[in-house]
């Protein structure tokens, strides 16, 4: 399968899936290209779903991607899972090529505008006793604890991918000076709401789980939205996030609000 557009490589993942790797001058660009293609695929499915609801289907319904089972994006790749009874990988490849390049472009500018208007603020109680590796991070980076906090809150971060566990958002890039390796031995239990860094990435643990990242503090910001029987991730890939430092009292007050 020949690459095209901002695609670097397309390879087989399994019998019923291909994975597309995107190109770009840096990770940010490759990540954007990935999400542009995903948005174009989603828009196509929605458009067709809309036609289905109407009484008189207009346009070419044979272009419907009824074979599409699921798309799973990550940093610079997109896994596309299809129904083998309806299509083979070559058919999927041709469909991707046909995705209107103009359509992808239009969507990308629209989604960038959306992103610009919304910066999600995540309040963090840095140094919370049960979620603090600040002294370890301080040693690893040769920065003072105050400098670590100042650097972590100094810039906005992009959500590159959501995954691993529900609502776990991989954000980056943290300042080079703050870069630090994962813990040698992962913790068995990281508390819910722990704000953490590893390499050039930062994240919030959406629920209590094992984890090997360096913890900076706690947030009351719930990474999952719960409505009745439905939960969804609060952050989406492409969202822009900024961390702000708060006190223990503010954190506890925030916890009440979230509950």
């Amino acid at each position: 399968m020949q690459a095209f557009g901002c695609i670097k490589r397309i390879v087989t993942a399994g019998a019923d899936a291909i994975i597309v790797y995107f190109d770009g001058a840096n990770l940010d660009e490759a990540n954007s290209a990935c999400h542009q293609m995903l948005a174009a695929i989603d828009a196509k499915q929605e458009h067709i779903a809309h036609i289905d609801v109407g009484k008189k289907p207009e346009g070419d319904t044979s272009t419907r991607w009824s074979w599409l089972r699921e798309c799973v994006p990550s940093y610079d790749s997109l896994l596309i899972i299809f129904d083998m009874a309806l299509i083979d990988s070559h058919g999927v490849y041709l469909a991707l090529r046909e995705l209107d390049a103009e359509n992808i472009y239009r969507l990308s500018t629209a989604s960038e505008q959306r992103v610009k208007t919304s910066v999600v603020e995540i309040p963090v109680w840095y140094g919370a006793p049960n979620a603090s590796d600040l002294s370890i991070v301080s040693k690893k980076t040769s920065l003072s604890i105050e400098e670590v906090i100042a650097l972590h809150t100094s810039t906005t971060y992009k959500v590159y991918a959501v995954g691993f566990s529900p609502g776990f958002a991989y954000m980056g890039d943290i300042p080079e000076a703050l870069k630090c390796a994962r813990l040698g031995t992962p913790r068995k239990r990281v508390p819910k709401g722990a704000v953490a860094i590893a390499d050039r990435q930062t994240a919030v643990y959406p629920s209590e789980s094992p984890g090997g990242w360096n913890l900076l503090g706690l947030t009351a910001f719930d990474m999952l939205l719960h409505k009745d029987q439905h939960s969804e991730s609060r952050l989406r890939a492409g969202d822009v996030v900024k961390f702000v430092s708060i006190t223990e009292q503010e954190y506890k007050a925030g916890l009440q609000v979230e509950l």
Partner: protein
Amino acid sequence: MRINVLSKGLFSLIIDKGRVGKQREGFCESGPMDSNAYDWANFLAFNLDGTPCIEAIGEMQIRVDEDCVIAVTGREPSLDIDGIAQAVYQSQKVSAGATITFKSALLGSKAYLAICGNWQVPKAVGSACTVVREQLGGLDGKGCVLKDGDCIEVLANTRVKDNAKMRTLAQQHIDDYGFIESIRVIPGYQFTSFSTVAVRTFETSTYTVSSSIDRMGFRLTGESVASDIENMRSEAIHLGAIQVPGDGQPIVMMRDRQTLGGYPKLGCVSPCDISRLAQAVPGEKVNFVFQDEEEARADWLLMTSRRRRLQGEIL
């Protein structure tokens, strides 16, 4: 009708087809470990595809308080009703108050119990599937596995008439769960970054199913198959993906796998063989053989059309 759990066995949970379209938010796919057995159980119990059922490890015992139709499937499953052995892979009429005991003959394999009717279990993120790690699904919707004393509500299915012809899958058509035949693998993902030697080693060695097997993944032990990749970006992990961490020991990723991961992968186990592998128990030996995607698709189309034909004949 109420289904009372008298004995939960070792590990039993409510499952259905799993969560679709939510992996991008980090929710795992979930679903039945052995989807072949799951599909047959529902078919034989007069249920629609995708109806919840129970996946059980160990011997499970339940009691029903109304007449109903059930079916038990899986790897070497057994069933008895009020202490009398009954055929598996077959619709079974059960009278009100009867005690149903079922299990797989192999400790670690799963048996599936389907009960005809409309299961009154909550859907969490679009599915009743229990995922303990994600605190999702199951009876309370919060990821609890079944326990003694639990009670499942199943409403009678009025579509099934009393004189409906009971369904049986003939012995010779029941899936073969042995490992004499190799497990088919489609080369994919980082396959080309593994050396020729590593690929040959993987294909010619026998791997042992370790005791680290669960709904997330099956860890195998055997000849090491290291790749040259030291650092890669996390990417989506498909069902059956064979990931190889630094120690060179392959892990086959199963239904409850994490959605993203950063270990190099050789490819994926064929959808035709994933159910068989999911029923393997610690200590069993498996071999792998590579197969290109066209062949894999042809095999899969044959397998599904065979199943449809069998179901048509049974109806």
